[in-house]
């Protein structure tokens, strides 16, 4: 469903998810400062850690109606960037 939506709505979802991350983690930046391609997790970019990821995953599950599952090799691959996370949400969301 959402996968075929036009780029404008992808961008809108990315902004929505960025806002959700900022709010869930009390980040001291504005959502606009999270760039779509920048890393969310790890030493670069936003620099989220494992407990941040769990907090974000909880909010994602509530808002979009699905539970995140770890990739067998890399728990955090869908958190590699805002775009990757938003794309995952678009593909899996039930609400």
């Amino acid at each position, binding site marked *: 469903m959402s996968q075929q939506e036009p780029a404008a709505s992808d961008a809108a979802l990315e902004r929505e998810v960025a806002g959700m991350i900022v709010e869930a983690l*009390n980040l*001291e930046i504005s959502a606009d400062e999270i760039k779509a391609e920048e890393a969310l997790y790890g030493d670069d970019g936003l620099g989220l850690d494992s407990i941040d990821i769990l907090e974000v995953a909880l909010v994602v599950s509530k808002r979009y109606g699905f539970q995140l599952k770890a990739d067998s090799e890399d728990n955090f691959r869908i958190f590699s960037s805002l775009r990757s996370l938003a794309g995952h949400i678009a593909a899996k969301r039930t609400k």
Partner: protein
Amino acid sequence: MSSLPLLPPAPAGHVLALHAGRAISQDEFLAQVLALAAALPAGRPLLNLCNDRYHFALGLFAAIAHGNLSLLPNSTAPENIAALHAAHPDLLCLSDQQEPPFGLPTLRITAPEIATATPAMPQIPPEQVVACVFTSGSTGQPQPHIKTFGRLFACAQAEARRIWATTGGPCAVLGTVPFQHMYGLESTVLLPIFGGGILCGERPFFPADVASALADLPAPRFLVTTPFHLRNLLDAEIALPPLAALLSATAPLATELATRAEAQLGAPLLEIYGSTETGQIATRRTTAGPDWALFEGLSLEQEGDYTWADGAFLEQRQQLGDVLELLDESRFRLIGRHADMINIAGKRSSLAYLNHILCKLPGVRDAAFCLPDESEAGRLAAFVVAPGLSAAAINSALRPYLDPLFLPRPLVFLDSLPRNATGKIPAAELQALIEQHLKPQESRRSAPGLSSPPRGAQHDR
């Protein structure tokens, strides 16, 4: 003292572990351990960085069987590993990853299927030093704590006796906590192996992963977690298979959270108390009241503000890091903490160490970490005097030294810190800073039975 078997006697065919969907018997585990032990170079200390709990256990037991010391660092931040390597130039890393971690000399751990007859059980002298567990210390120099085989074995058996009494017998043990730290090591690796339970190789991350990993285990199931992971799991409101019990540690658990966990999961929640120095020594059922019950054979003694533990598996008496009130020979209450220890989601550091690292960054004139919300084991914050530096610059300068869980958020920039004549930040002053700069952001919950000053106060410069 006479020697101990590497693994306690078990009935024929005893399943010791579940790994990657396969049941592994004690005999097969032993065969894999002995095969790996034969590949270990004599005398070299090992840094076991395996991500998979089963691989970690293979490495640990092979090291014990072959007489190699396992080093368990307090942090895997790059500078910390570099310092460990400098202190132990012949260190060999054990890893289950493709790339050698930190570019260290590495032996890759796999778990080859081995069909075998019953191998001979190695006999281990109880006084053999098998592990060196580091705590962060206060001056940037990690403090080593030596663990003998006899002590780890006896402590895990004492824990097993206590926990299996609640669960009705040995369980399959699943953990969400890192096993390179004492809590995870004792409760997710040594408890099942020395206590006749089943070790589970997985370390599930998201709540849905916890649910599916539990579903793959036979009953009775035992879940080892932390207040942070537990709250996240409960908030996800997903169905879990029946549990025999849950275990929490590393931070005070709010009674409200314990009550909710027991209601939602239909199983008793035990809290375990211990330290890197002593190992685990007591449990309580949080919903039954504030009293802790010491493991059998241990005793506590009060000297001024300090409490010492002795007996059972402790070769000599050990000072505890917390303020305890002794109720009788086997029960106590936890009154407060001696300052300094910080535990987040199963990883441990100390305020003194964190402050030391932050204060020595170029451009930082003064700084103090604090833990504004003790009961949630929430994120650390820091007050910092660093004209011209940004929060991003400070955080990236901290990263080589600290596990990301300990990075401060927020970093509050001030013109100066309210230190008194002796250079300490009084508790009231720190609390005022927290109220002023940190409190409005999130909901507050009170810590159970702890009315201590905010963590971070009274830091000596």
